[in-house]
């Protein structure tokens, strides 16, 4: 049967709409809405979560994420500079570190740091410190490659201008290259912050006192108490309150830097 390209596209579109509407209708008529509402969103349960879900859960999520990100960024900077070093063993060490921790599940790292270090060294490790280190290690492996790509994306002319003014290589790196690299990699860095915000939920597996609960743990405990999924939903909304603005920020930054794409770590590896 002969059908014009345009006509076929139209038919296909209508079929798709039809399927969508059918699914919605089936769900709407078969679902027990009352049951769903009390299970997923019970206002009373929701109200009982406040203000602690914010003052404890959200705040701790922000603190764990913030500490991990800051520590990870510092570590990533060192690793990136090692990767670009003229000293071969430095390059190797950083490369091994990056491959190692990029290849491991974040949870494993958190468990290793949170329970492994206290066991191995027979010391007490503060929850905040443990998560800062563990999340930092996880994030640094990714951010190091991003940073390296950012540093390599700074035009050579900038370095030459700095060197021709008498700046040493180290001075050039610190005052000219790294600030510009950060500007270039702000969007991917923001994305890493989003990932880390979600990864901070793995703190759940370390066990914590009530004041140390972050959103997920807070939600899970409340879930057990209330027998309603509402706390999980509320916790989820709290995460979205962090991650959605960040994701918009990231897209805004990307537009502002002219959408200038830096090579993915893999593609710069090929070039290097």
């Amino acid at each position: 049967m002969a059908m014009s390209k345009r006509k076929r596209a139209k038919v296909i579109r209508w079929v798709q709409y039809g399927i969508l509407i059918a699914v919605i209708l089936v769900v709407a008529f078969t679902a027990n809405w009352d049951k769903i509402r009390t299970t997923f969103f019970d206002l009373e349960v929701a109200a009982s979560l406040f203000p602690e879900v914010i003052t404890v859960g959200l705040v701790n999520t922000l603190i764990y994420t913030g500490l991990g990100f800051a520590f990870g960024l510092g570590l990533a900077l060192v690793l990136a500079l090692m990767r670009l070093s003229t000293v071969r063993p430095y390059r190797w060490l950083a490369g091994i570190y990056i491959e190692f921790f990029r290849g491991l599940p974040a949870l494993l790292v958190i468990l290793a740091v949170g329970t492994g270090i206290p066991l191995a060294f027979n010391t007490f490790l503060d929850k905040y410190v443990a998560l800062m280190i563990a999340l930092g290690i996880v994030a640094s492996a990714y951010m190091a490659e991003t940073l390296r790509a950012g540093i390599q994306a700074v035009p050579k002319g900038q370095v030459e201008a700095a060197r021709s003014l008498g700046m040493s290589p180290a001075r050039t790196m610190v005052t000219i290259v790294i600030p510009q690299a950060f500007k270039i990699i702000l969007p991917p860095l923001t994305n890493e912050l989003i990932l880390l915000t979600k990864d901070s939920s793995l703190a759940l597996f370390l066990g914590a006192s009530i004041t140390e609960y972050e959103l997920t743990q807070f939600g899970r405990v409340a879930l057990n108490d209330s027998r309603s999924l509402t706390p999980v939903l509320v916790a989820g909304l709290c995460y979205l309150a962090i991650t959605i603005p960040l994701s918009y920020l990231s897209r805004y930054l990307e537009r502002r830097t002219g959408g200038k794409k830096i090579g993915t770590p893999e593609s710069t590896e090929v070039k290097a």
Partner: protein
Amino acid sequence: MSTAEATEVAVEITDLHKSFGPVEVLRGIDLRVGRGEVVCVIGPSGSGKSTLLRCVNVLEEPTSGTVVVDGTELTDPDVDIDAARRRIGMVFQSFNLFTHLNVLNNLTIAQRKVLRRSQAEAEQIGLANLERVGLDGRESAMPNQLSGGQQQRVAIARALSMDPDLMLFDEPTSALDPELVGDVLAVMRRLADEGMTMLVVTHEMQFAREVADRVLFMDAGVVVEEGPPEQVIGSPREERTRTFLSRVLNPARVAEE
């Protein structure tokens, strides 16, 4: 050589060779620039003009030969190259202003970090040089808010703020829209009049003719011809120079007719 004569020599390049891998780009260059002298380097694309200039402040490491600037041998492996570069200003074809810094910080950052001048002193010197290039009032602009000609003049002011004894220019007007070339050349002309020692790679024959004390014609990594501008540009002796000049000058002549 007497000491008096020695201090008169700003740049002394002897038998300079530079290879990139198997390609020999500079094939034995000898060049002496006296204090206060303006030397223009002309030549076809790929002849090694930029490479020569970049060897003078060792942005490119020469393969062999010596470069002596103000009595310091920069090709000596033990030389403090950063200290030497403080006295050598360089202006690039693509301006290379620091894109993350505003004009004033572009002018002051090296003064503060390299020369250890105070913020106040650096700003005073920076602003004075900004005025010198005719851009007073633009100190808080970001580089990307300026036209190419303005950016290049800021780049000149940035180099001048380090109080250089020697200025290197690598086709400073080649990336500019034609109507912006004049402002930059005017700044350079004034600098030459003030007695700055300058080594200028350029395609601006009019500028070379009027400002240069000496013109060097390079081709394929060697200096083919050198002398006063009226000779090298006005009545070149070498065939290669004539061919090059007619190519550069002809479009202009056609436009005039």
